[in-house]
């Protein structure tokens, strides 16, 4: 009796999934009009970057893709693998130079930055600022000095109690009001700083979790060997704590990438912003489904690449596994 019921349910589910898959496929191929995506690929990639200079952000992104592939699939146990972390870090200043210009390149204003380039730049920039800040906050929260401990705790709790969008509005709209007239901080920079200030509070809690997992005997062992408190932190405690915090930090990085889409509400034309302005164009009116599906695919691709890289880093940093 039960077996027949099981078979019936299985059949029904299979039919439902089949029907859903078929109609989706049918729509994807016949129903959808992908011209809104195909004709605007450069816009999605680099925004309104001057056409003759588009190669600059493209070079940067191709570099990122190559580096990702090299890191994940490149041959193991070869000398240049040691240079990979340096190459990754170097991508930030190189990207900035390619976008800003100067030093032989034509300067390009930040209002012409956009698309995936801007999304990646916001993510990378705020992540690189937020990590050291988060580590300092986590250490501050565990400090023996009451003033340092209280102010770190207050900062973390305050930031976690405020929605990100409020922090971003504060960064974009309120900070300029407080600055003396004439002094203007760049819009993209304001966004990066606001993002970093917000993310640092969450990163601090992840790092604190890692710090708490290190038994106090590790610090004792370091002290007994004559290491100074700073050396013990730098050489013994932090390397272990950050490794433990890595999975949660990956989570934060993926969240950061997705949250950059909030900048569209503030007028930055990153990936979501550029899509919204395309949808406002009469030529592409009503093409919501195509555009948002395309966006979902791009975000998914970026997040998956980040998750894979993080997983790779975890394996690399696991001493026992990488030693085998």
């Amino acid at each position, binding site marked *: 009796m039960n077996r027949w019921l099981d078979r019936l349910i299985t059949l029904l589910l299979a039919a439902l999934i089949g029907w859903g898959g078929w109609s989706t496929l049918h729509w994807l191929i016949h129903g959808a009009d992908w011209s809104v995506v195909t004709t605007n690929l450069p816009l999605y990639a680099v925004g309104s970057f001057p056409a003759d200079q588009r190669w600059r952000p493209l070079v940067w992104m191709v570099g990122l893709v190559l580096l990702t592939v090299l890191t994940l699939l490149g041959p193991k146990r070869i000398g240049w693998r040691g240079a990979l972390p340096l190459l990754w870090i170097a991508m930030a200043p190189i990207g900035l130079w390619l976008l800003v210009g100067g030093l032989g390149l034509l300067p390009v204003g930040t209002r012409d930055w956009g698309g995936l380039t801007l999304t990646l730049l916001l993510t990378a920039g705020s992540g690189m600022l937020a990590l050291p800040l988060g580590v300092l906050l986590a250490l501050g929260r565990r400090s023996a000095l009451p003033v340092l401990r209280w102010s770190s705790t207050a900062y973390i709790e305050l930031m976690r109690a405020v929605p990100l969008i409020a922090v971003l509005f504060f960064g974009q709209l309120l900070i300029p009001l407080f600055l003396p007239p004439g002094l203007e901080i760049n819009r993209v920079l304001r966004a990066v700083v606001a993002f970093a200030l917000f993310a640092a509070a969450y990163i601090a809690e992840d790092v604190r979790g890692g710090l708490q997992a290190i038994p106090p005997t590790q610090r004792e*062992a370091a002290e007994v060997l004559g290491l100074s408190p700073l050396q013990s932190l730098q050489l013994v405690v932090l*390397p272990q704590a950050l490794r433990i915090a890595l999975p949660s930090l990956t989570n934060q990085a993926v969240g950061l990438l997705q949250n950059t889409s909030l900048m569209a509400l503030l007028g930055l034309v990153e990936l979501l912003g550029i899509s919204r302005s395309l949808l406002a164009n009469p030529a592409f009116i009503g093409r919501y489904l195509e555009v948002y599906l395309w966006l979902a695919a791009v975000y998914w691709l970026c997040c998956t690449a980040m998750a894979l890289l993080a997983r790779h880093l975890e394996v690399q940093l696991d*001493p026992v596994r990488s030693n085998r």
Partner: protein
Amino acid sequence: MTVAIRATDLVKSYIPGVRALDGVSLDVTCGEVLVVMGPSGSGKSTLIRTFNGLEPLDGGELDVLGMRLDAAHEEHQVRAIRKRVGMVFQQFNLFPHLSILDNITLAPIKVQKRAKAAAEQRAIELLDQMGIREQARKFPAQLSGGQQQRVAIARALALDPEVMLFDEPTSALDPERVKEVLDAMRQLARGGMTMVVVTHELGFAREVADRVMFMDQGQVVEISDPETFFSNAKEERSRKFLNQMQH
């Protein structure tokens, strides 16, 4: 005979009113092996942890290799002592993220500013001495407890200490791993190292110790040569403890 460690009237209490150390005085002479025994909670671990400043004192004073340490000591005084006094813990406390070689060379390179090549060469010598030279490139988690403890001894020796403190070095080991660690310590004692060893290993105490100190409730009950202590202990409390140890 020169004195390596002189303790005068040491007092330490974790909880107000309860003294973990209650007026402990003793001398450790250079080249001597002093074994400290006593029931758990008797203050023996606390005592040797005061010798390198891991436990700050509440009273009394210490003279470690001519350096003074008391309740009002400063961080730099403690660090000067730690550079000349090695310590081995019950739980090994190796750094899990560093290879065996890096565990041993970390302090010589970072604290004593020795050249990397020289520090590594010395580390290999010490590992050889401990009988685990082939483990140099592995990580702590890949070694047995006995091997890890021998690495910990090598790590402490890498700073060329004049005194070695052992805080129950075999208590966390599987029984069949105890001997290899005790052998390494025997070898060290034969080489003339000044050692203070907190342990429950009666055989080691009988064979290697120059003197045995028995502690109870934060006080020194007696200090005797091992022969007297094991066959004819002066104090009732020592005899009772030994009786329990031998079932």
